[in-house]
């Protein structure tokens, strides 16, 4: 492409079309631009347009297109062609800085981004003049230009804040410091002077303060990796000026906006960060300045208002104080009682107040409110910062701080008592204060785990929390109700049990509150109380203690799901699940109504599943209903099937992907509960479960495998007789699974069930193929996981069909195959098998090979007999070999059995661990001893001689131990 007017014109037209709302016009234009972007001069045409086009939209559009072009193409990737020709690269680098600086702000930002992308690749080696070019502009006196330079520098240097130290990085930083630090410092001083000469010129001040913010950010980046010599030498200049900027105020810079932080706030906030950086990393050098900053920041806090726009500043400032007050050598700065009192009074208490914005969130955005308040996503809030400061101060001054706050709490409670309707916020603050003062350590699972002993939590609970919850109206002062419920929740381990029991009916009552936050908290609190541990690993609160409340609890929980805004409230659903699990058989009388409500809910949400947690707990609750009821009354199984199958069919037919894995799990649970032969309703579904489309979705695989296993356990004979034509399909699923490194273990689960349960004759014609398939995988792409499963399978096969059958099938595939598998796979790898049942299967299987396989005694396989025995003893006695070849690390992390990304396992649909060996062998060591004994009786003298020739001494010692324990001797 030439740099011609005609091309400029064409480009202009296409750029214009890319802005068209109609995709039929926009898309082809975008395509066209992409197709020509490899041409020489294309970027230069864009630069020309963004500079010279008559239309502003085209200028902006060209600048955005240019930046994206740079982003996609500038980096030279090894082994890939260079996508921008060298002359264009040189021309871009030569022109972009002046162009950026002379452009209006909107375009300047795009070009500045482009420069930093280029800089990331080319700076400093391939762009040596960039820095000088930028620094020279500092002299220009034009702050529009200067800010452009500063912004570009910021985007170039900000990576110093997160990259690891390296020679390359530090060489670059050193270069930057040499060229940039002094001019930046001079600019800083000059800008501050200009601020005082222009103190009355609002528009000038705005520009100057933007510069100061950028300068302060650059300071942070340049000082991040280590304290540069230059900045150490010039600390006085920087810190003195930072300090005075912190204390500066100018009416002209105050904004009316309540939400958006203004320039002054942003600058001070950055200065707090800079001071915090120095305090943390360069304490030794910064020590002389630190006390001044503490005072300034504290004064700043005292004088800053409650508006949202100050939030970041305030929380940064408080966090600075919190981090300093914990350091032993700054303890003295806070020690004085007056200082402490005034920090508590003027910094902490005001920032704990419930603000208008909080109130709004409480009412209109309760989900967000709950997330912040309950789940701790409050890191940047003022309340949280204040809370951290309390905890920081308590490290050295727990007594005095508790004392000061007790006074506050009392006076706030008195205020509240005088006129609750007007002063309820005082009580909210009091509760928050007590909470933050008392809590020293906290977890989601247990609430507060370490409390301040100076605070009497129970007394406060009885005198100030319970009365609120006992009041006649559940809807009065909802914020205080929520506070009270939260108090129970987090101090549940500190408040004595009898008080918790008193609270339970109150909590159940508050499930009816209209406020979403209040009834959600009530549900959550109940759920938490029900998970508390008592003595002997039982629940703290027992089903018996709950007996009087069962009906009202269940009623209110399900009613709460009908309250506006809570139809898919996960906290309520989780509380339902937990209540079922706690109450057990006492829920049985209510099951008919419960299951109706649950299936209706299921039907409703399956139209558009949107709350994964809610859905999960709902299915858990369904599983619990089934287990609890059928345990007491097995005949109820049919009525559950009747109630659920209709909805399940609909879910399967409509292919509700989110729910299908759950449906399979519930069906597995139901089927496993059948004592007799598989019902025909299940058999009708069997062919559909083998449909490939189901197996294409990874999330379906584990629950489907489990379901098929249930089919095999309950209906192997039915399948063999009535659905024999489906056996190839079933094995096809196995083949599909075994082909994947991620799912092969699932394939083995299925295969193991097939071998264990299917009548042998039904498999005769497939047997050889199964093994061939496995050997192919073993040969072409074996992994540790595959070998582990393979070993378990062949030993299971050996147990089921006998060692001789195993040897025969191997050798029928290829002569001497059996010996090769023994030598190359079983003996060297058996140590890798993990899991108790798996190890037991292998032990029993190998024992059979050793003692019930004649070819092991009188063919060339005999030489493998002792090594195999030694490997078996190793399996018994040595720790598991969990080494994994390096190249397999990736697979192992992604595909370890039991770790599924797309599959949500239901805990209450849990499958019992299955031991196919079972009671047949209790102690595999003794079993080995007995089997060897039997073998030695059959061929006297052989066994001892094989042992003495090649079994190593230690293994022999172990073996003698087994023989002794089994009270047998070898002949």
């Amino acid at each position, binding site marked *: 492409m030439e740099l011609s007017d005609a091309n400029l014109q064409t480009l202009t037209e296409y750029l214009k079309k890319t802005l068209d709302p109609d995709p039929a016009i926009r898309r082809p234009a975008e395509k066209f631009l992409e197709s020509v972007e490899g041409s020489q001069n294309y970027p230069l045409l864009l630069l020309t347009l963004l500079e010279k086009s008559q239309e502003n939209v085209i200028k902006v559009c060209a600048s955005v297109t240019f930046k994206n072009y740079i982003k996609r193409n500038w980096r030279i990737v090894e082994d890939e062609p260079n996508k921008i020709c060298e002359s264009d690269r040189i021309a871009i680098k030569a022109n972009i800085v002046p162009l950026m600086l002379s452009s209006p702000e909107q375009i300047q930002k795009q070009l500045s981004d482009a420069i930093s992308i280029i800089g990331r690749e080319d700076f400093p080696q391939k762009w040596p003049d960039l820095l000088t070019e930028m620094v020279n502009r500092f002299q220009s006196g034009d702050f529009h230009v200067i800010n452009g330079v500063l912004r570009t520098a910021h985007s170039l240097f900000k*990576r110093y804040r*997160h*990259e*690891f*130290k390296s*020679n390359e990085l*530090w060489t670059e930083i*050193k270069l930057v*410091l040499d060229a940039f630090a002094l001019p930046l410092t001079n600019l800083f001083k000059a800008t501050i002077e200009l601020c005082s000469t222009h103190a009355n010129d609002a528009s000038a001040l705005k520009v100057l303060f933007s510069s100061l913010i950028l300068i302060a950010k650059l300071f942070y980046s340049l000082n*991040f990796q*280590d*304290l*540069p*010599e230059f900045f*150490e*030498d010039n600390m006085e200049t920087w810190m003195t000026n930072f300090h005075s900027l912190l204390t500066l105020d100018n009416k002209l810079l105050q904004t009316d906006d309540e939400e958006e932080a203004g320039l002054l706030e942003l600058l001070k906030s950055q200065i707090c960060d800079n001071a915090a950086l120095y305090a*943390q*990393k*360069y*304490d*030794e050098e910064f020590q002389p300045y630190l006390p001044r900053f503490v005072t300034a920041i504290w004064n700043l806090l005292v004088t800053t208002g409650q508006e949202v726009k100050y939030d970041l500043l305030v929380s940064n400032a408080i966090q600075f104080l919190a*981090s300093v007050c914990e350091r*032993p050598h700054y303890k003295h700065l806070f020690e004085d009682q007056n200082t402490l009192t005034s920090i508590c009074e003027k910094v902490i208490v005001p920032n704990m107040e419930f603000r208008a914005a909080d109130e709004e969130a409480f009412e209109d955005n309760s989900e967000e409110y709950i997330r912040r308040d309950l789940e*701790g996503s409050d*890191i940047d809030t003022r309340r949280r910062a204040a809370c951290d400061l309390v905890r920081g101060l308590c490290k050295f001054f727990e007594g005095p701080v508790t004392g000061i706050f007790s006074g506050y709490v009392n006076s706030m409670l008195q205020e509240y008592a005088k006129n609750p309707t007007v002063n309820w916020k005082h009580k909210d603050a009091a509760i928050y204060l007590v909470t933050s003062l008392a809590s020293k*350590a*906290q*977890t989601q*699972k247990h609430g507060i*785990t370490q409390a301040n002993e100076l605070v009497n939590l129970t007394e406060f609970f009885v005198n100030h929390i319970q009365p609120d919850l006992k009041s006649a109206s559940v809807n009065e002062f909802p914020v205080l109700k929520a506070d009270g419920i939260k108090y129970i929740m987090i101090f549940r381990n500190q408040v004595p049990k009898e008080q918790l029991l008193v609270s339970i009916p109150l909590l159940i009552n508050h499930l009816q509150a209209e406020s979403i936050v209040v009834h959600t908290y009530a549900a959550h609190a109940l759920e938490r109380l029900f*998970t508390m*541990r008592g003595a002997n690993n039982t629940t703290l609160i027992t089903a018996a203690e709950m007996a009087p409340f069962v009906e009202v609890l269940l009623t209110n929980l399900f009613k709460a799901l009908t309250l506006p805004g809570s139809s898919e409230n996960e906290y309520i659903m989780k509380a339902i699940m*937990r209540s079922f699990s*706690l109450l*057990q058989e006492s829920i049985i009388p209510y099951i008919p109504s419960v299951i109706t409500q649950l299936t209706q809910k299921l039907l409703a949400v399956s139209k558009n599943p949107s709350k*994964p*947690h809610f859905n*999960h707990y709902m299915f858990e609750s369904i599983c619990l209903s089934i*287990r609890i009821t059928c*345990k007491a009354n097995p005949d109820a199984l049919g009525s559950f099937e009747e109630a659920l199958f209709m909805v399940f069919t609909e879910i399967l037919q409509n292919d509700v992907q989110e729910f299908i894995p759950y449906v399979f799990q519930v069906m597995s649970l139901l089927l496993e509960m059948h004592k007799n032969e598989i019902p025909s309703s299940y058999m009708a579904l069997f062919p559909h479960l083998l449909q490939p489309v189901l197996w294409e979705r990874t999330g379906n695989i584990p629950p489907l495998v489990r379901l098929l296993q249930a089919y095999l356990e309950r209906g192997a004979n039915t399948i063999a007789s009535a659905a024999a034509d489906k056996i190839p399909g079933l094995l096809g699923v196995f083949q599909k699974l075994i082909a994947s490194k991620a799912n092969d273990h699932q394939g083995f689960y299925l295969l193991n069930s097939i071998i264990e349960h299917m009548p042998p004759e039904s498999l005769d014609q497939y047997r050889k193929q199964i093994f061939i398939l496995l050997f192919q995988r073993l040969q072409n792409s074996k992994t540790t996981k595959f070998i582990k499963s393979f070993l378990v399978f062949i030993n299971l096969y050996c147990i089921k069909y006998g060692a001789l059958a195993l040897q025969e099938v191997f050798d029928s595939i290829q002569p001497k195959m059996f010996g090769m598998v023994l030598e190359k796979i079983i003996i060297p790898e058996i140590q890798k098998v993990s899991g108790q049942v798996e190890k037991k299967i292998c032990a029993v299987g190998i024992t059979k090979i050793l003692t019930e396989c004649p070819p092991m005694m009188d063919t060339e396989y005999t030489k493998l007999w002792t090594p195999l025995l030694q490997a078996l003893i190793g399996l018994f*006695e*040595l*720790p598991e*070999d969990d*080494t994994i070849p390096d190249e397999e690390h990736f697979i192992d992390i992604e595909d370890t059995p*039991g*770790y599924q*990304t*797309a599959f*949500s*396992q239901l*805990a209450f649909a*849990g*499958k*019992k*661990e299955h031991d196919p060996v079972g009671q047949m062998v209790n102690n595999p060591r003794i079993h080995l001893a007995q089997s060897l004994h039997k073998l030695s009786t059959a061929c006297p003298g052989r066994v001892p001689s094989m042992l003495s020739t090649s079994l*190593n*001494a*230690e*293994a022999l010692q172990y073996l003698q131990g087994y023989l002794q324990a089994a009270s047998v001797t070898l002949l």
Partner: protein
Amino acid sequence: MPVVTEHSERMRKFKNKGKDAAALRRQRVEVNIELRKAKKDEQILKRRSISFSLMDENLSPREAKGNEIIQLSLEEILQAVNGSNRELQLQATQATRRILSRQKDPPINQIIELGIIPRLVEFLTHADNAPLQFEAAWALTNIASGTSDHTKAVVEAGAIPAFISLLSSPHMHICEQSVWALGNIAGDGPLYRDALINCNVIPPLLALVSPVTPIGFLRNITWTLSNLCRNKNPYPPLDAVKTMLPVFTCLLEHEDKDIISDSCWAVSYLTDGSNDRIQIVVDTGILPRLVELMASPELIVMTPALRAIGNVVTGTDEQTQAAIDAGVLAVLPHLLQHAKPTIQKEAAWTLSNIAAGPCRQIQQLITCGLLPPLVELLDKGDFKAQKEAVWAVANFTTGGTVEQVVELVQSGVLKPLLNLLLAKDSKTILVILDTISNLFMAAEKLGETERLCLLVEELDGLEKIEALQTHDNNMVYRAALTIIEKYFSGEENPDLQPGTGQDGLYDFSVEKQDFNF
């Protein structure tokens, strides 16, 4: 017994899974570029004589008359030096020396530009004019004390052989001045250091060391010798090192703290290198003395002694064991608590390298009570020291046995470690995250994963790790994500399953589930 060997072999492989012991030990210099000011506690490379020393007044009676010396202009100096009047030569040389000795901004460049250096070097050879030799030596010493270019000007004028022959001057003050000048030249860098060594500077220098050498002189000799050991890329030749070492071994026993200090510095340079260089020092048997000196109340002695021992433990397990046997673990606790941050840092660095050793050395570290001061340092130390302490903990958790790791956790390491996740240093954060993973691996072996999860959450670690999932550094964010996914992503296990195991029906607790929506 093969079974046992196989087993221990496997254990060994397991312990260091993916890490190799050498990588755990960290040599002093990871980065050659420094952003910081040259460290104040380093030994000085070059020194200028700025005022009249006592010795000078005693030995140079002319000086006593002081003000009699007339101030000369540079022009006059040039003329006089190049002239043939011996009296004027001396006056001019003395004037030169004086202006080079003034406290502030000595005009070294101007003197070099005058072009009189070759002439001054020539004066060094005027054995018949000791005062002139002395003044010239002094002036050249001060020129050589400047930048590399300044030193270069002196060397290129042929000063090295001239100064070396002055080492056998019958006048002790000339001899001493030459030692000083040679020290400045050696301190310039490996190039001139080796040039000096190749000109055989060492034997005459060592010959000057004797029981009757005056203290001040001996200090100068020690300092110059130490500069001959200094600098890397390349290291000083091994033969040279071997000839000097026995002398340092003796000097370390001297009573003068400056002599001890410079000898320690020399040893610290010699140990700052590959393991075979460390071995040469270990073989002299001076480790016990160095450890003793680490406990010295004198900062100038303690600093280089600590540095030297710190270097030794970057070596092999056996070399580290030699330092342990010399008692380093008994001294370290005090140094970890030292008031000076740089000492804390060096001590923690030393400890981190001992913690990188096999578990028997880790056990010694526990037995000697190093854990409490380590935890204390991690909690309250200066940031530089905290960073090293983090490495110590990381190495400990990589190489320690499960029991040792449990002991570490019981010493309260977790809280300060987790607090440091707020550190403004990506590498430190990454090392902490790796350490946390190590702790979890140990917990898994003990079936205590759940408890560790709770502990981490209680100590506000969880929210810090969660926050790191948005860190700008890719490796940091991935490490955080891995920990969250692996240990914290599940809902808590429904640990209250009804009637667990009673009739088998509810026995479904074995499988651990991961909820991932």
